[in-house]
């Protein structure tokens, strides 16, 4: 579903991701893990079309991506960000936020689609006309996930989707993401520094360090602490000790 070959991403001429290659199959959940500065979010941005200085190839659903992303792309790939406080428009109601993608893409039947999506992400219909500040962090992240799913994309790019949330709320959102993937056959590309989340939500993971991919392994290897790169093992050790 996603094919990355020899991807190098730069900011103002300085490369921050160096020759990264990996494939994510249809319906698979793949994690990119690493510390801040490892380039994991930058790869997500390059795929989403938010970082423009890149070389190599990015393919989504078999189509090679250019510099610009068109309307067909956003119907296939959507993104959920870390901070639901920052990613929702503070003066638009939940209904506005969820209807807008449909309006932009001239899709009919907005009313029913909004209500169905509220049900799908487990938000009570009474929240439909609320503003973001009237919602809790977990409810807001449900809105952000709902917004991403309005165009029925096959791929979700998830950038630390639960790191701004309390652990009990994190559990709710992780369950929701697992359920949605099972129901809709979604493909996930998840960026996180939190290895236990990878164990819960993903099938495979890539370990990034300073913009280079150190290893790609099955989640079973992560669960049993058998990552093969020295750096991967170091991350596992820190995850257990920090």
């Amino acid at each position: 579903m996603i094919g990355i070959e020899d991807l190098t991403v730069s900011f103002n001429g300085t490369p921050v991701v160096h020759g990264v290659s990996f494939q994510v199959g249809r319906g698979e959940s793949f994690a990119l893990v690493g510390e801040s500065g490892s380039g994991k979010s930058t790869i997500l941005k390059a795929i989403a079309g938010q970082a423009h200085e890149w070389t190599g190839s990015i393919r989504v659903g078999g189509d090679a991506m250019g510099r610009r992303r068109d309307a067909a792309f956003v119907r296939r790939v959507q993104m959920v960000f870390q901070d639901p406080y920052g990613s929702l428009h503070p003066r638009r109601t939940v209904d506005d936020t969820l209807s807008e993608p449909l309006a932009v893409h001239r899709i009919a039947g907005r009313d029913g689609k909004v209500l169905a999506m509220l049900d799908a992400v487990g938000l009570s219909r009474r929240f439909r006309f609320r503003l973001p500040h009237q919602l809790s962090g977990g409810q807001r992240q449900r809105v952000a996930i709902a917004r991403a799913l309005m165009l029925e994309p096959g791929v979700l790019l998830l950038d630390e989707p639960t790191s701004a949330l309390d652990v009990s709320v994190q559990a709710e959102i992780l369950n929701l993401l697992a359920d949605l993937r099972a129901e809709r056959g979604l493909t996930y590309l998840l960026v996180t520094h939190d290895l236990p989340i990878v164990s819960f939500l993903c099938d495979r993971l890539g370990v990034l360090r300073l913009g280079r991919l150190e290893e790609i392994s099955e989640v079973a290897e992560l669960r049993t602490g058998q990552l093969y790169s020295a750096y991967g093992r170091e991350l596992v050790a820190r995850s257990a000790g920090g």
Partner: protein
Amino acid sequence: MSLLRVENLRVRFPTDQGEVEVVKGLSIDLGRERLGIVGESGSGKSMTGRALMGLIGPPGRVTADRLEFDGIDLRGLSESGFRKLRGARMSMVMQDPKFSLNPVIRIGEQIGEALQFHQRLPARARRRAVMEVLEAVRINDPERVYRLYPHEVSGGMGQRVMIAMMVVLQPDLMIADEPTSALDVSVRATVLEILDDLVRRRGMGLILISHDLDMVARWCDRILVMYAGKVVEECAAGDLHAATHPYTRGLLASVPQLNETRTRLPVLDRDAIGAGT
């Protein structure tokens, strides 16, 4: 001898819907030990820390049957009285160095400011004390860091600078409110080690406030679990996994593990917990 004795601490704020109590009758008896306060957003854990430091201003109200720090009654202590204590005898490390350091003052001078306020040392002695404390928080080249501005250092280094600033006067009590949650996983352990080392070596009392159960269990001797302004569980850190309160049990169960094989994570039943307390 206890360093801090708190009985029935309450913190209230007026709202449009009447007064809201965010800390509901908390009691602590702290010696020179490491106490963890765990809870989620809105549990009142940070408000507890701020109340102890005298940092809740009007319209907030703090009351307690007893609120003593090293024999000093903090109830009704004036702002200038608190200023004499804060920094010198009790200090607080906040969550994010980006927002807690003054961006336009060099790091060395910022650390020296507390010394100047409380001790009036000659400039040279002050500089030496700052260098020593920077070394104590494992900054390898204190001469260079002394002259830097906060934006020129990383988050982990910034937090070490914060800790240096808080321990330069060798306080008796340190309150650390989420000292690592703005930091990268890789530097969290280092910051906590430094804090732990200082607490042990200087015999300070530490209150570590965090939402992270595992972290608190690892670095503290004793743990209070707060929920909705109340302490729902108090136990030795080693016994956390034998916790009995449904909220604590729920929290522990909802954290994914590295060897996770569950397909669903248990979710807290807040109504049931609310009814139980």
